């Protein structure tokens, strides 16, 4: 044997499953994996259950028909589909300019003053406010006071309630997205004699458009599925939309109203609406991921 005493035992570096630390490691990994599975199961079950229940009752005509009067068969959710699109569009018209503008102010112009701190704090609080509070707020502000040309419940009121919910997300993602833009880029623009306004509009904002768009899409995805703020703002209507100052049906309120009715046709429609809503929101989230992936390139 020429092996010197310094040579390692050939198995010294091998993995030994019998050691206490290796067993503890395996046990902890198993526990973490179990809880992770339990955490994700409800999510998968809900989506799969809604998809299966919904797709089995889906008919192409559902997209263009009105819900039937109680007791009758058939019908569709065409009015709620249009209503959701209209109310969401109205909420975007209010929340996107205000939210993006607020985010630009916070990130670019505020210079971390007291007011900006207050707005950031307020935004965080607003993000945690239950959605029904947004509904109550708009109800008290617009619906009960009939300030919109004497109309009470209306699509505009519903859109405003959703806009309140979307604001914190949009302000925050705009603020954070602009902070990610390298400072050198601002210096570069200022260095060639651009004003603060031009620098922000022409250089900084285009560089942050992907995270901002992601935030807007995520905010839409969240608000499109909200029920509570719409129940007493946009209310509901079994008819085609009559205008943005009149009550309007939306998918989420349709599900809320129909799922608890004792009629088979209405329950079927609620399942179909659930399916469409889930697919829409899933699609929005995938779209948001696609946009943010766009930014990384």
């Amino acid at each position: 044997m020429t092996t010197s005493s310094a040579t390692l035992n050939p198995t010294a570096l091998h993995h030994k499953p019998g050691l206490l630390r290796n067993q503890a490691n395996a046990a902890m990994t198993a526990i973490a994996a179990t809880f992770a599975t339990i955490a994700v199961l409800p999510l998968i079950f809900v989506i799969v259950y809604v998809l299966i229940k919904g797709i089995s009752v889906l008919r192409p005509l559902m997209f263009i028909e009105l819900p039937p009067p109680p007791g009758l068969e058939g019908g569709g959710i065409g009015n709620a589909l249009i209503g959701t699109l209209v109310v969401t569009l109205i909420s975007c018209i209010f929340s996107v300019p205000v939210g993006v503008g607020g985010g630009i102010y916070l990130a670019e112009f505020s210079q971390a003053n007291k007011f900006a701190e207050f707005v950031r704090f307020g935004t965080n609080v607003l993000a945690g406010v239950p959605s029904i509070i947004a509904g109550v707020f708009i109800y008290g502000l617009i619906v009960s006071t009939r300030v919109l040309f004497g109309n009470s419940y209306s699509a505009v009121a519903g859109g405003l309630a959703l806009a309140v919910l979307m604001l914190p997300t949009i302000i925050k993602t705009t603020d954070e997205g602009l902070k990610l833009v390298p400072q050198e880029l601002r210096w570069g623009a200022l260095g060639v004699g651009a004003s603060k306004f031009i620098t922000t509009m022409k250089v900084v904002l285009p560089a942050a458009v992907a995270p901002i768009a992601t935030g807007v899409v995520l905010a839409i995805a969240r608000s499109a599925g909200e029920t509570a703020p719409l129940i007493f703002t946009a209310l509901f209507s079994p008819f085609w939309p009559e205008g943005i100052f009149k009550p309007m049906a939306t998918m989420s309120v349709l599900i809320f109203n129909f799922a608890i009715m004792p009629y088979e046709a209405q329950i079927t429609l609620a399942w179909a609406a659930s399916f469409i809503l889930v697919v829409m929101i899933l699609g929005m989230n995938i779209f948001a991921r696609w946009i943010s992936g766009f930014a990384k390139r």
Partner: protein
Amino acid sequence: MTFTTHITDVPDEQVAITCDNVTISYGSFEAVKSVFLEVPRGKVTAFIGPSGCGKSTVLRCFNRMNDLIPSFSLKGRIIYEGQDLYEPKVDPVEVRRRIGMVFQRPNPFPKSIYENIAFGARINGYTGDIDELVERSLRRAAVWDECKDKLQESGYSLSGGQQQRLCIARTIATQPDVILMDEPCSALDPISTLKVEETMHELKEEFTIVIVTHNMQQAVRVSDMTAFYNAVAVEGGSGKVGYLVEFDETGNIFNNPQQQATQEYVSGRFG
């Protein structure tokens, strides 16, 4: 500690920027103290010195870039064309249109190469042929051959050295009077550095250039005048305050410096 006065008797029309007893502070902390300096017109002036001596700070005051730092304050006067740049009525945007800046890291806009050049010209109300201006600026910055076939591609598609020359082209496209360069080659490899230096030689015919550099050989290669800054510990305070030690022709600074500190720095004994 002695502060030497460097105001010389050169006629006014040969001076581009004058520092008259400039002291720059961030909050209560003094970064640079009592700088007297006359940057000559149509020449390359280099600022050298160890880290933290305030050379970049002084440079950034020449086009009011330090305004972006909230705690910044300046005492004394910086005079350009007979105007104090820090008078309350002065608009920093107007200053920066005449005194352009190239930064340490290449920072092209996330736009096409063409738009990178055209941006500054448009916002400055340039009425001539923008195509021609883009070509002229890129040629002057010695980067035309590398990007003439891909003007519509993103500025980020260029290499680091090409990006930096694109940034120089962007700066000269706005037709400034003075170009400030804050360690323009510190993020570049030696070959790109040489190309940027060649560009500087081309440009000094027409522009006054002030360059901050950590690289003493670079100062020797590109500059006509050199200012050496140093930092000293403050008596009874924390931190260091920068000051201008010596300002002279580059040859004198490197071969025949008048101050002990300069001698030690240029011979590589500290810094």
